[in-house]
């Protein structure tokens, strides 16, 4: 539980930081798909156009979380 001085235990602090950093992309991905779902509900025929936009937005938001996990292991 306690974060000791050795380098090995600092990895756990990294993971806590990553958990905090993942909140933002998590909210972003939720908003993107919420907008996508309500867009399809209002206009089902627009689904194929909205889908690629939604997945692009998801990929961009997710990239932030991905960079976070890479840095959490590297730093």
């Amino acid at each position: 539980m306690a974060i000791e001085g050795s380098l090995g235990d600092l990895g756990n602090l990294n993971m806590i930081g990553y958990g905090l950093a993942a909140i933002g992309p998590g909210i972003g991905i939720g908003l993107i798909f919420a907008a996508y779902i309500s867009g399809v509900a209002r206009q089902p025929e627009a689904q194929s156009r909205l889908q690629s936009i939604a997945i692009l937005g998801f990929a961009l938001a997710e990239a932030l979380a991905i960079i976070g996990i890479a840095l959490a292991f590297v730093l």
Partner: protein
Amino acid sequence: MSLVTGLVQAEFEPPSPADFDLPAVFGSGTFDFLGQAQVAGVTKPMIQIVLAAVFVFALFYLASRKRAMVPGKLQFAGEEAYGFVRNSLGRDIIGSHDFQRFVPYLFALFFFVLINNLMATIPVIQFPTFSRSGMVYSLALMSWVIYNAVGIQKHGFLGYLKLQSVPAGVGGVILLLLVPLEFMSNIIVRPVTLALRLFANMFAGHLLLILFALGGEYLVKEMGGAYIGVGVLAWVLFILVAMLEILIQFLQAYVFVLLNAMYIQGALADEH
């Protein structure tokens, strides 16, 4: 690091990136690369990446060999797969004018990435090829070369640089800020995020599965008593997360090719 010291007989070792360093299957010894010892020899991911290429080739060769008017099962599946990539990734993204010449590339890329990802779930193999970052860098480099070459071919070198770094409808002093930013994001950050996304998704997913499997084993075998129930719960979660992983493997293959198609479309786009 255990949470309750004193209760524990043997220390639990959490999985780490070191679990992805597999020993060589053929060949032995190490060589020095930038001060790090690297395995000299053929490793499991290398075999997998070749197997995937052979498998994709064999599958679609068999599916397209007969070319019957009334398709059999395999030919029908092959046609459906081709139609999916051609329509939803090629035509809808790149545009009906010049998507046709990119379809073979997108099609091969999608199934190559998909088969490599699915290897994380196939029994016996059970290792995602792209959880080794070097494997993905080569794919990202290839797509970087392709979309830049296509753009330069169409607009000329300076025209292409202008297209990628000067956003339309912006003028004046704000350009000083936007041009370096756009250049960075379109030319430099794109291949990096393309590679990192696929790599880190496969890496993190596999690490999560190792954690549930090893953690469950530790709870059942080392802790015993009431912890056995918790360990079994961890194994149930392992199965559920493995299901989620299959979904992610499809999604990441789709996103990888979708972004490839979007970058090609952006390079081909006329000035606004």
